């Protein structure tokens, strides 16, 4: 980052001192507005600092002595001048900001719709054709992230299954909170092919800083082939399918498959083991136990996890899917 | 008044209940009065959040509030309103007694006020315990009959909830016929109800402590025509508590 770029004018595409590249149609408008406020502020700032420095030097006590010469103590005229002029600039800022905001809130009617479900600490993206991708914790999950076509307006409907999260793509200058219990929306039209970071910008607990994902912008053709591929599960083995479900359904938010206890117990090497429950009894982990753990988690609670209930997946997983998950868990032994 | 500040203490004309940093009794009284009014302002804002919650949920879910309000006992609410009004009246009278130096009557009026306050809390207690018994509680409480999933209602509550489902038509809709989203919001109504009345109840109890303290001071002979500030200010607080109830009553009990 070269300091001389501080004043560089907005450019499309390339990164500037202030901003990452402008990868959406809205970005340049945000940047232009930013630079407008920036130059007004810079001017005001320089004016007040220069005035302060000049007065300080010119009227320093060592120079002018103890008693200053007479000068006016107030002037209504000048008070009005220096209230009205900044106020006018502020009106301009508000007005352009307002217009940009309205645009950024009203997607074109033909926009492509994607549903994004956020949970601690990952995203699940549901496409209209049934394709599902995930993106989240880079340490354990290599989810594909959000894949979108270039030059097409995209509306993302946000929801959250637990706490507040926020969908933030700096390259698009787009941000919106995902609020549990309701839907919120964000839209943008990417105009540059490439990969851009997607951050969670609302604090959501321990791994808030790990709730990272990528937005992959691809050409329309690539997108169409990708989307068609993505719903094709037929070539997956039950284990692979289970693994995918494990990520997509958000199990990874609580369960590690690498032996580390998280919010829930680690699940590798579980199958066939004797598990101790809170009441001290032991059960063998078999297909039925796992099925029950998914459909009615509170029926048999594992020792040490009495206070953190697992969410029930009844109604969210069908029999095939459960079998796939069981196959996957088995494969972890 | 003498010219130096430090011999205030020796000034024979200086009333003994005039604090060292005030010049006159009038100034002291005015200051206290302003202080208590500013305090009442903070109290109003303290309650504001709950009134805002109330407005917000009621304006968006009027049918929920109308339904849920049926579970409140209007008769008890009305009696409590009158009890509280009576206590306000006796406290206002007590201020008059203090100003006129009628110590015995002052004591008596304070006592009646205290008894009314106790009565109010007693009725409140009866109301609350009914609700706890029936499980007509806020959303997250395990025993509420408004749990989103009727299957989750515990056995001991089932019986009561069957009663609420009475076919005689006391309630516009039986609990079990409500859809889950509606049930959930009924829970919110009770959340708001308990918070509002609970916070108000806490204020009543603080007021009772205040009254007891005032009675003790009355007994000691603290109050007279030039020194009744504590009674006056205590009364102002008490009236505010009454004021809030004046709004709570129709807002919670009288939704049609």
């Amino acid at each position, binding site marked *: 980052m070269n300091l001389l770029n501080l004043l560089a004018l907005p450019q499309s595409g390339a990164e500037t001192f202030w901003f990452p590249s402008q990868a959406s149609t809205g970005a340049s408008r945000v940047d232009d507005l930013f630079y407008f406020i920036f130059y007004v502020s810079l001017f005001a700032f320089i004016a007040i600092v220069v005035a302060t420095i000049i007065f300080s030097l010119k009227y320093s006590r060592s120079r002018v002595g103890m008693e200053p010469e007479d000068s006016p103590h107030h002037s209504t005229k000048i008070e009005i001048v220096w209230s009205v002029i900044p106020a006018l600039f502020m009106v301009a800022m508000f007005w352009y900001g307002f217009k940009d905001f309205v645009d950024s809130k009203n997607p074109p009617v033909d926009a492509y719709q994607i549903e994004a479900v956020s949970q601690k600490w990952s995203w699940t993206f549901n496409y209209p054709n049934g394709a599902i991708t995930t993106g989240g914790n880079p340490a354990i999950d290599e989810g594909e992230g959000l894949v979108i076509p270039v030059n097409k307006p995209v509306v993302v409907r946000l929801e959250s299954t637990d706490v507040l999260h926020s969908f933030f793509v700096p390259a698009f200058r787009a941000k919106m909170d995902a609020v549990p*219990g*309701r*839907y919120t929306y964000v839209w943008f039209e990417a105009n540059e092919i490439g990969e851009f970071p997607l951050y969670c910008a609302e604090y959501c607990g321990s791994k808030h800083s790990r709730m990272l994902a990528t937005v992959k912008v691809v050409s329309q053709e690539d997108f169409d082939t990708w989307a068609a591929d993505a719903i094709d599960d037929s070539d997956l083995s039950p284990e692979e399918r289970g693994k995918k479900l494990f990520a997509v359904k958000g199990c990874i938010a609580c369960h590690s498959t690498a032996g580390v206890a998280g919010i829930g117990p680690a699940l590798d090497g579980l199958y066939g083991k004797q598990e101790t429950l809170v009441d001290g009894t032991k059960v063998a982990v078999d297909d039925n136990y796992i099925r029950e753990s998914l459909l009615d988690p509170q029926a048999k609670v594992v020792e040490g996890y009495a206070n953190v209930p697992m969410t029930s997946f009844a109604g969210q997983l069908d029999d095939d899917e459960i079998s796939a998950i069981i196959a996957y868990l088995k494969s972890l032994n | *008044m003498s010219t130096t500040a430090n011999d205030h203490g020796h000034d024979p*004309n*200086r*009333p003994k209940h005039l604090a060292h940093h005030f*010049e*006159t*009794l*009038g*100034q002291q*009284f005015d200051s206290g*009065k302003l202080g208590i*009014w*500013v305090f*009442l*302002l903070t109290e*109003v*804002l303290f309650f*504001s959040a709950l*009134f*805002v919650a109330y*407005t*917000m949920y009621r*304006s*968006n879910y009027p049918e929920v509030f109308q339904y849920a309000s049926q579970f409140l006992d*209007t008769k008890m609410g*009305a009696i409590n*309103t009158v009890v509280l*009004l*009576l206590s*306000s*009246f006796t*406290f*206002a009278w007590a201020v*008059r007694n203090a*100003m*006129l130096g009628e110590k015995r009557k002052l004591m008596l009026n304070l006592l009646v006020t205290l008894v009314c306050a106790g009565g109010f809390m007693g009725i409140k207690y009866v109301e609350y315990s009914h609700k706890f018994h029936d499980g007509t509680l806020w959303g997250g409480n395990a025993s509420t009959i408004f749990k989103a999933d009727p299957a989750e209602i515990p056995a001991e509550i089932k019986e009561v909830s069957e009663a609420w489902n009475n076919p005689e038509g006391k309630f516009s809709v039986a609990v079990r016929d409500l*859809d*889950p*989203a*509606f049930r*959930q919001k009924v829970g919110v109504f009770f959340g708001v109800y308990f918070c509002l009345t609970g916070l108000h109840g806490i204020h009543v109890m603080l007021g009772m402590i205040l009254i007891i303290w005032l009675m003790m001071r009355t007994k000691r002979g603290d109050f007279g025509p*030039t020194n009744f500030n504590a009674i*006056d200010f205590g*009364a102002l607080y008490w*009236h*505010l508590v*009454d*004021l809030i109830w*004046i*709004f709570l*009553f*129709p*807002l919670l*009990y*009288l*939704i*049609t």
Partner: protein
Amino acid sequence: MSDHTHDSGEEHIGHVLPLSLLVKVFGGLVLLTALTVFTGTMNLHGWDLPVAMVIATSKASLVCLFFMHLKYDKPFNGMIFLLSVLFVGLFLAFVGYDAGQYQDDIKAYTIEHIGGE
């Protein structure tokens, strides 16, 4: 300050209200309570809330003006009280309006995830 007096010994402070007035105010309050209970049982076709609030506000004014001495007090104290009501009003209006605007997003979600309505 204008009310700075120096004969601190025997000055008169406060305003004594006649007992008859207090009784009348109390009577008025009880009557208004009865009225509001009565109107509460009727169906006023959407006017229930305004009517109840008008009655409650009249009761509140009685308490403020007489029991709380505002009628005889320095007007500034009353202004403070009105100020608090004003701010609560602002608060209420802003939040109430806002919540109304985004209810649809909540209802859409509720229908899909919890069911009902």
